[in-house]
């Protein structure tokens, strides 16, 4: 094989290896086995969520501490196939768009999750403020998913004073007609005598207790 051809082959193989490493290599193992997303997608989500919501500051939890990657994994698993696929393509696009749109600073072509926190912030901000509507749309879509995940965390909601309150749902006529979703009529647990009388509703007090799923745990740990 002529020397030039050999060099070309070696360079080509190196590029392929670098590409494979870029996409598949060096991602940490998640603590919990994911439902739908891959290790590399969770790695990307951890980086993106901690860029948007770093540790400390006005709200203690970072994005990853608030469980955004795990929430997004469950969310994507609940989506119909084509919609879930589009969402995963979005993650792939943002993770690897640094090939086309380099991040400022050294080695700005690395995948998003491999950039420094400062580079990630500067790079995503470029998408947010871009004059090109499609780039802004990509950013807005990503931010929407991350924001939903951040605000699904009970501790975050408590810190911003927006955790849902406990409400005793009255028993109404419909509760005698419909079972919970996925169950049959045998799961209807109310009878006529259980109906709540009209006028029993009380306006929510400003200091009403929190919904049990959003209240701090009795042992003081974060829920």
């Amino acid at each position, binding site marked *: 094989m002529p020397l030039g051809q050999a060099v070309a082959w070696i360079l080509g193989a190196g590029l392929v290896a670098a590409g494979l490493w870029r996409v598949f290599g060096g991602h940490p193992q998640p603590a919990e086995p994911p439902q739908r997303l891959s290790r590399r997608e969770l790695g990307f989500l951890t980086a993106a969520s901690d860029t948007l919501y770093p540790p400390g500051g006005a709200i203690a939890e970072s994005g990853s501490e608030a469980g955004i990657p795990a929430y997004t994994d469950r969310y994507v698993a609940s989506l119909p196939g084509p919609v879930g696929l589009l969402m995963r393509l979005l993650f792939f696009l943002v993770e690897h768009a640094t090939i086309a749109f380099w991040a400022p600073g050294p080695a700005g072509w690395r995948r998003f999750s491999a950039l420094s926190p400062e580079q990630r912030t500067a790079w995503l901000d470029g998408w947010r403020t871009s004059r090109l509507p499609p780039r802004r749309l990509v950013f807005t879509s990503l931010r929407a998913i991350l924001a939903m*995940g951040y605000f699904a965390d009970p501790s975050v909601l408590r810190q911003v004073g927006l955790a849902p309150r406990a*409400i005793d749902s009255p028993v109404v006529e419909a509760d005698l007609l419909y079972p*919970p979703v996925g169950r049959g009529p045998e799961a209807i647990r109310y009878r006529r005598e259980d109906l709540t009388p009209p006028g029993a509703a009380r306006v929510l007090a400003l200091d009403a207790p929190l919904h049990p799923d959003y209240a701090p745990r009795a042992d003081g740990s974060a829920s």
Partner: protein
Amino acid sequence: MSVAAPEEGAAGQVRVFAQYDGDVRERCDVVVVGSGPCGSVMAYELAAAGLDVVLLEEGPPYTPDDFALDGATSMVRTMRESGLRATRGTLLTTMQANVLGGGSVVNSAICARPPEFVFEAWRSNFDLEHTGREALDPHYDAVADFLGIAPTPDDVQGDRNLLFRQGCDALGISSEPIARNVRGCVGSGECFTGCRARAKQSMDLSYVPAAIRAGARVLTSVQVQEVRAQGRRVTGVAGQIVAPFTGKPGARFEVEARAVVLAAGVMATPVILQKSGNLANGSGQVGRNLQFHPGTATIGVFPDPVQPYFGATQGYQSLHYLRDGFKLETLWAPPGVFGVRMPGFGHDLKRRLAELSRASIFDAIASCHNSTGEVRARRGRSMNPSLRWRFDPQDVQVLGHASWVLAELLFAAGAHKVLPGIHGVAEEMHSLDEARVLQTREFAAGDFVNASTHAFCSTRMHGDPSQGVVDEFGRCHDLDNLWLADTGIFPRCTSVNPMFTGMALAHRSAGVVKEAL
């Protein structure tokens, strides 16, 4: 309507997914497709008149335990396409509920009667003789009496709604508490994820149980895919049973009927007609003329806590600028939704999020008659629509004007900064002077994050059969016994929230269906 105990065995008139063990065949006088506000009114009125009615709904019924409190999960469960539906052309996100009771389960219960000038435009542009406020008021009244529609009382307004009134008063513009189909609101602000307090008189709690009491049968988790017809008459509908949440198709079903009422919604009714051999489309208008009320929301941050988690989801409105093309309202939603709107990164973003407890959000919805689109069935088996819509530059400026008024209103209410959420202007504005750029700027459609849950006109009414799909009573021009009853039959958008008008028109149409049978 008072709390009523159903007859023993009434639950047997409702069929849910777990009960289907094979193909289903039913026969009735009238089959109503869609249990949203319009379909439920139809089903009840026709059953109460002694007709044998079957009401079909693609989604399942919900109990309070089924409601998810976080926005994303709630949308996945209660919306077609997981709440991620959008138009092509100009991108606008929109939604279609997929639950017994339709959109009424996840809307904020606003019941507004459009002013006469809206109907005057309908009559003069679309050859309609009998569709004005005076003609429709008895039907609005009947629905209002049934649902207990009343202005939101002060004790559940909460600070964020009352600040709107304060702002309007300071600017000298009219405002009013929003009339809603609610009984015993507790002020939880959770209308969009389902009312745990069971105060909102959504259709699953009001008209559907009443229809059942009157003898109607309700089949849930059934997706209508076809209306069957012979000549000028329809003979029934057919489709598949679909699993809750996943939509996984199962056994077949069919319902034979003397008359069919399609009330599947602006984005589903045209698809069903198109998938039924382009039925009822002699005019060529099925799926065309799609309109929305695009909206914009502005966040105001106040010096003192507003405690925004308390209060009616949308408790106050102003119709002052209706003739200018927009309506002003208060707004609350799951916090994640506002988290999406907050600008910035990192600690700046977190600081802004922490200010949400001092925030009040006002929004505007715009009457965009020039911005139209279309609904098309997709190839294959999917019943999801393909949507195209274009935001007309003239209408974009209406939304721009509204964003200036929203900023003005928030500062007048005492906000120390506003976040307009519009591309190309400052993310935070600290004074009215800073906000004046909103007054003079030439806006582009892409400057706004476009969204709308109000959709119209995809099967519009018109006095001329060559120009519209139905007459002003909802009967198809091309077929003798097919009625359409959702906001798709509106000839133009209503400029105010459409649910109440849809119900009033359905109430009127029910009388015509009764006479025809």
